[in-house]
């Protein structure tokens, strides 16, 4: 058992009732993460998406949190205040069952990093309505070293999942040899 230590956990709190469906969070996220920065302001590259169905009054901003190479069995339907939501509406997993959180050109996963270099993530900065708020919570938990994949590792993992180790290795070697 590891020792318990105090940690600051950063997260984004979502108040669904305050979302007006403007999708400013998507614009800001994609702008910040574009290379070069601000070179694209394109919701389909965003790491936060508003899952939206106006006629069902459904507005759920979800951010890409984890990567999974396969979909889950989660197809539950939840009814909240008389409105039906699919389980996917609240799920931040980057999974192959939906076309969300994948770069539209490369097909590689896009993961939320809470805009690590900023004092506050861009999506919360772009949400004066107060649906998204940035919070830092102090929690006490076991001290274990967290290994978090960086963007390249995540992309590599997705390629390995898609094409298999051998094919990726062959391709890598071929390209590397060409210099």
């Amino acid at each position, binding site marked *: 058992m590891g020792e318990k230590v105090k940690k600051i956990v950063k997260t984004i709190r979502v108040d669904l009732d305050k979302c007006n*469906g403007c999708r400013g969070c998507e614009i800001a996220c994609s702008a910040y993460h574009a290379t070069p920065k*601000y070179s694209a302001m394109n919701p*389909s590259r965003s790491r936060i*998406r508003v899952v939206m169905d106006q006629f069902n*009054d459904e507005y759920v901003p979800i951010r890409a949190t984890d990567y999974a190479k396969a979909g889950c069995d989660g197809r539950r339907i939840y009814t909240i205040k008389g409105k039906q939501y699919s389980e996917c509406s609240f799920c931040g997993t980057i999974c192959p069952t939906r076309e969300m959180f994948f770069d539209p050109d490369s097909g590689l996963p896009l993961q939320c990093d809470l805009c690590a270099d900023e004092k506050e993530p861009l999506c919360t900065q772009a949400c004066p*309505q107060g649906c998204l708020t940035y919070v830092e919570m102090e929690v006490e938990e076991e001290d274990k070293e967290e290994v978090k994949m960086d963007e390249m590792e995540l992309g590599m993992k997705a390629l390995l999942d898609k094409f298999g180790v051998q094919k990726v290795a062959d391709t890598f070697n071929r390209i590397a040899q060409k210099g």
Partner: protein
Amino acid sequence: MRYAEAGYNLEVDLSTGNIERVETDPKLMETHLGGQGVNAKIIWDRVKPDTKPFSEDNLLIFGAGLLHATPVVGCNRTSVNTINPMTGIFGHSCMGGHFGPELKHAGYDRIIIRGRAPKLVYLYIHNERVEIRDASHLAGKGPGETTSLVREELNEPFAQVACIGLAGENKVLTASVEHGYSSASRGPGPIMGDKRLKAIVVRGTKDINIAHPQELFELCLRMKKWINDSNGCGDWMAVDEDDSFHHNNFAWGYSRTRIKNYWSEELQDRWTHWKYDNMDRQAGCYNCPKGCINVISWPGTKRFGYKCYGKDTYHMAAFKELDYTYGMLGQCLDWGVDSYSTPQAISLGIELYDSGVLTDQDIPNFPTDPGERVKFLLEKIVHREGIGDILANGSWWASRMIPGAESFEHNTVKKMEQLPIKLGKLNPAYYLMIATGEKMAITQIEGSFPQDPIRDPVKRKEFVDNWDAAPYQKFKDMFMNWEKRDQISIEDTCALTDWNEAMHYIDDSTGLCGFVSSFRGQFGGQVAYSFNNVPELITLATGMEMDKEGLWEICRRNRDLVRCINNRLGMRRVDDDPPKDHWAVRDPELEEKLLDAYYDFRGWTKDAVPTKAELHRVGLDYVADELIQLGILDPNEGTPAQEAAKAEEQKSGGC
């Protein structure tokens, strides 16, 4: 590299099924910006004056604004233009929501639709992939069902959908195009129906290049917060429950009856409960923090969204209360009818029945309760059944089709219903705007200069000192010297009409919403966008040099072009005429003077056609040439003032 624009149009011929992606001329952005500006240019070039609205040759254009898909806040209104079958002239129409930005991300600045499909179809666009697909299973379905069905069958949960309901399919002239809780009225609904195009489904994942992205992004992030916090932006009717203005001042029924002391605290309290007890949320449009759309779940009806005065029109037509309208709007949205013009066509029908012009033979089983009557006629109109088949053409046409009905029709301009406003003394500025505007709704013409003077000189000065939206000092001086509503010089009236209109022409070409721009400034002056900052935004987005004067010049060009399209379709001075009873006290002499002065100001002839010199000035020589060739414009004719001077000179024999 193209900035702010996608650089391509999507050309769709529904008759042949031909689809083309056509690169556009970058110069058009410099001359017309985008949105309605460029749409008008295309309609001038390609829709010949003998084209009937309901013909394969009429175009239906969904145009994204120049600043769509940039971070500019509150920029999301899509211009939908065609020849409006009700008026027979250029149809001005636009809708909020998410459609235009999505279209830009799909790689197109606009969709140009011509022809007519052999059966009901919908158009599916995902970037370069474009398909015309069967829509027979969507026939008769409302926007809610249509949207979810197409999203599901295409596996496109993020696609944006614009569609028509049953009214559009049946070519009801007051039908609108529906997109979420936004809609485009005044023309495109019935044209979409005529083309047998049920829906357009668009999904885009491509980038739009921006000339100075970081500066624009940072500026917009600041503006977003400002707009969110500002009381000077958005629809104040979403938050202010005192709606005495419309109920005490606008006319009820068939725009005949004013109930001056209608509003009361007790009523406001009751209505406020109806609203908030049944409200799901106040929703917004793409990249706008405001919540102008009230989303209501009313027992027994489909969920609906409305904004502004849209909540009043049905119960005011039926002499009922808000709960009546709430009971109607879900169905109206589902059928896809415009809530401004439709209730007036209905209430004309009721008046004709009460007057004996229509009888039980014309309307069998007509109920007695006015609320039931409105519902009864609405259903007939949407299905084009019986008398509904006539009323579906709007009140102007219906009154000409029903023997003995013409003298009853009293509230149209250029054949289209106007807001039910009946006032006392002529208001010069409103006379000019209602008479000469071609957008067929005063809310699309008025908006920057306040409607009324501020009596208290201290408060007036305070207003002027904080009035950042005023483009020039002359407007501040005008306002400082303005004390009584109808006492304003002709010269000033022309200038403020021009400013009001120009702001709308900015919005229609850039895609900005009137609630953060053209319409909202008149109430409080603290609006987000004006001639003082839009040029900078255009420069940052497009890289094109722009200043106040340059922007005004483009507005003038776009304004002249719309006028010329309509001149070519037969419109003249005689059509620049408000409803006869809009004001009880008219002043024909002053009205003629106002028109003359305004035409002078605009560089239009006495018969309301832009002069050759004016068209040369705005770079529309090719338009002048055609108008001259068609005999619509005399190349030697000047403005009324020049003509008067010429006549004077001839009288004196010259010197």
